[in-house]
């Protein structure tokens, strides 16, 4: 069933009458979701993705706009009449009913012609239980199930009415790392088997990229970009999308374009023909660096993380907005690394964004590549949405020029600061201590993320059970490094 969202807008009235304006949770959401696909709504918390999902489900009424399932306008239909299945973030299984009763509940509510006999109900429940592989757990209560099993029961309950559209709200957020990998494959399989148009919401870009046919990246209620996950990753429309997708995250630098040359800091790194002079942000994917003696970008090395096939070079650059520049180099190409490295940049991994609007500035071959991508997506029947022009911003939502260590201080820290001003040497002692702390905290986390990503690559072809082993290692990794660090 094709789902069409036309100029969908949801405005929540402000709670205080005197102060605070109304909240625009979803702003002019306009999208056509093709039949039988798995769509990921992706964005940071508070971007309106769940609100969009609940409007599609009918639990929340849009302030304006229309929702069509196929040709039917369902905007004003009650949830139970829309033919949807909804899986809640915490599953919302009825705790006092057994698995079977939970699955039967939607069927028992059917009225009139749709009403089924008891045998038919049981048969349908058993079929769907088999599909999600919980047919042996039918007499358990939800509290006797593991998180993954509860998740399946929730999906079974959503599927048993044979919905036209299946909606999943953060389906994996309550599962542990290992189960998450397994379950997302499961969701993919169930979706393929049933061919039901499925929309799921997540804040985890990795999750969305790995199983979606199509992702919708949102920020503050506005669609930032839509497209196939790989395309969105390779061709982000603006700085927000570029930063939101990818682990390790994209490296962002400040720079400028002058006389058709792209500068990172003061170093001219690429030739950009036909682009006007302007202040820009430059995003470089970690895999976009080439170690070369004659490279244009100079960075000070702070560490090298060896991950077997690849090596992650951690370095710093004065123009970098991230605390460290993280580049992934094939271990074959890595020679001796001293205290300083020089990088050349792969042109298709470098994204330029206007500093004012944070809008993408296409240059060189990227212009043609982008046009080709748009053509191909259109040919496949996708609607293309790219956010151009100024991005929606919250009051405190700025590109962080540096680590805002000082700003993050709490009330007590400020008080402490006031006191320490009286003492002479105190402030001087404090600052180096804080800056020294930051990278120490950073490294184990990112280390843990990196192997997780590499573990995924073979998994796409391998069966789920095979995928468990590497993911388990990945899940254990942070624990190990932490305990080692303590010892």
């Amino acid at each position, binding site marked *: 069933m094709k789902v069409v969202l036309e100029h969908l807008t949801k405005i929540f009235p402000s709670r205080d009458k005197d102060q605070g304006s109304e909240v625009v949770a979803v702003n002019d959401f306009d999208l056509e979701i093709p039949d039988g696909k798995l769509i990921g709504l992706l964005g940071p918390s508070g971007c309106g993705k769940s609100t969009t999902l609940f409007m599609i489900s009918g*639990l929340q009424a849009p302030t304006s706009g229309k929702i069509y399932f196929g040709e039917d306008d369902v905007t004003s239909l009650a*949830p*139970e009449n829309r033919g949807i299945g*909804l899986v*809640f973030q915490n599953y*919302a299984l009825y705790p*006092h009913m057994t698995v079977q009763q939970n699955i039967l509940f939607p069927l028992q*509510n059917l009225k009139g012609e749709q009403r089924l006999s008891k045998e038919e109900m049981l048969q349908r429940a058993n079929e769907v239980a088999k599909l999600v592989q919980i047919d042996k757990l039918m007499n358990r209560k939800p509290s006797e199930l593991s998180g993954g099993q509860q998740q399946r029961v929730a999906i079974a*309950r959503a599927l048993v009415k044979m919905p036209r559209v299946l909606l999943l709200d953060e389906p994996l957020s309550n599962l542990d790392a290992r189960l998450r990998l397994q379950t997302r494959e499961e969701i993919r399989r169930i979706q393929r088997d049933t061919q039901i148009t499925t929309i799921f919401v997540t804040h985890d870009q990795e999750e969305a990229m790995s199983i979606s046919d199509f992702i919708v990246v949102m920020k503050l209620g506005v669609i930032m970009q839509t497209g196939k996950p790989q395309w969105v990753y390779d061709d982000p429309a603006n700085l927000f999308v570029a930063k939101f997708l990818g682990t390790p995250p994209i490296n962002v630098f400040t720079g400028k374009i002058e006389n058709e040359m792209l500068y990172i800091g003061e170093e001219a790194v690429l030739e950009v023909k036909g682009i006007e002079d302007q202040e820009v942000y430059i995003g470089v994917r970690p895999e976009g660096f080439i170690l070369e003696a004659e490279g244009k970008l100079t960075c000070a090395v702070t560490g090298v993380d060896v991950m077997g096939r690849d090596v992650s070079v951690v370095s710093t650059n004065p123009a970098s907005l991230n605390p460290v520049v993280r580049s992934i180099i094939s271990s074959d190409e890595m020679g001796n690394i001293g205290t300083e490295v020089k990088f050349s940049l792969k042109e298709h991994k470098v994204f330029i964004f206007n500093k004012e609007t944070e809008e993408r500035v296409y240059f060189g071959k990227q212009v043609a590549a982008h046009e080709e991508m748009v053509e191909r997506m259109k040919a496949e029947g996708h609607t293309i949405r790219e956010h151009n022009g100024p991005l929606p911003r919250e009051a405190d939502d700025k590109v962080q020029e540096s680590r805002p260590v000082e700003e993050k201080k709490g009330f007590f820290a400020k008080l402490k600061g006031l006191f320490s001003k009286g003492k002479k040497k105190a402030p001087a002692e404090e600052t180096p201590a804080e800056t020294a702390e930051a990278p120490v905290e950073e490294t184990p986390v990112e280390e843990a993320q990196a192997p997780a990503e590499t573990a995924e690559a073979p998994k796409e072809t391998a069966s789920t059970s095979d995928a468990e082993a590497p993911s388990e290692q990945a899940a254990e990794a942070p624990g190990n490094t932490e305990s080692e660090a303590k010892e």
Partner: protein
Amino acid sequence: MSKTKEKPKNNLRAWLYLTPAIVILLVFTVWPIINTIRIAFLCRWDSNLAAVVGYDYQTAMNPNIHYQFGFNNFVNVLSAGNSFLTALGNTMLLTVLTVPISTMLALLIAVALNSIKPLKKVFQTIFFLPYVTNAIAIGMVFAAMFSMVRRTPTTDPTSVGIINNLFGLFGGSPVNWMDRGSSYWANIAVLVIYIVWNALPFKILVLLGGLQSVNKQYYDAAKVDGASRWRIFWRITVPMLSPMIAYVVITGFIGGFKEYTSVVGIFGDDMGPYGKPGRLDTMVGFIYNSIPHNQGKASAAALILFVIIFAVTMINLYVSKKKVHY
């Protein structure tokens, strides 16, 4: 890690802090309970009366009189005949009538309160008022509301009660709820209305608290699953509230068996309408009336009441274990 294993060193100080509470509990709760049990089993042969009599404070002062252990007080209670059976019957009847009615009403009101936003606090306050009002005062107001005749036997009956006035407005004839010549069931009706009304606030409070802690997502899920309001109430709300409902029912039964103030408040300590004293006596009323002349009998009756309450509570717990979802 070592901190949790450390033995608390300030044991003595802790006991010291607890002492005032323990002393008060010992003197005013534990000792009376023990004493009640003791007294219930004490009796003696009174040669003047030529009968076995129970314990009473005045004769107990006399050092020459010795009590013996025996079941005579219980025999006394059970052979008190009609007065005991009346009290037991009234108590049972009131409990069986008021607990289900008040629980269901409280559940409906709680659900209604939970689903409105404006004036919620106002209604909550109104429903909570009986809880903070003196039972005797409420009883007197009820007596005035339900009365039909002035309580002087010489004058002609004149209808004064607001309830009978309301009946009159709708064309009904006034009912003699509780005055001289009123029927037993009219009396019981007044009592039931009073007790239910009086029991509502606490139950509403507990159930409303329970309702507010139910995750709203279950209702969203039920809505998506296409359940009607009625089914949502029976299949979601009631099971989710079952621990609170069980609590309210159990405490309701216990309170019901201790019913006394409602009767006194409305009918006075005659425990019945004019001309029929003792008709509406309850177990606690029976105990109180026995105290002045025979503490042994009162204690025995109290023990019997305790056993009944204990048994009923056990049955309640047994049933709720099967029905309540935790």
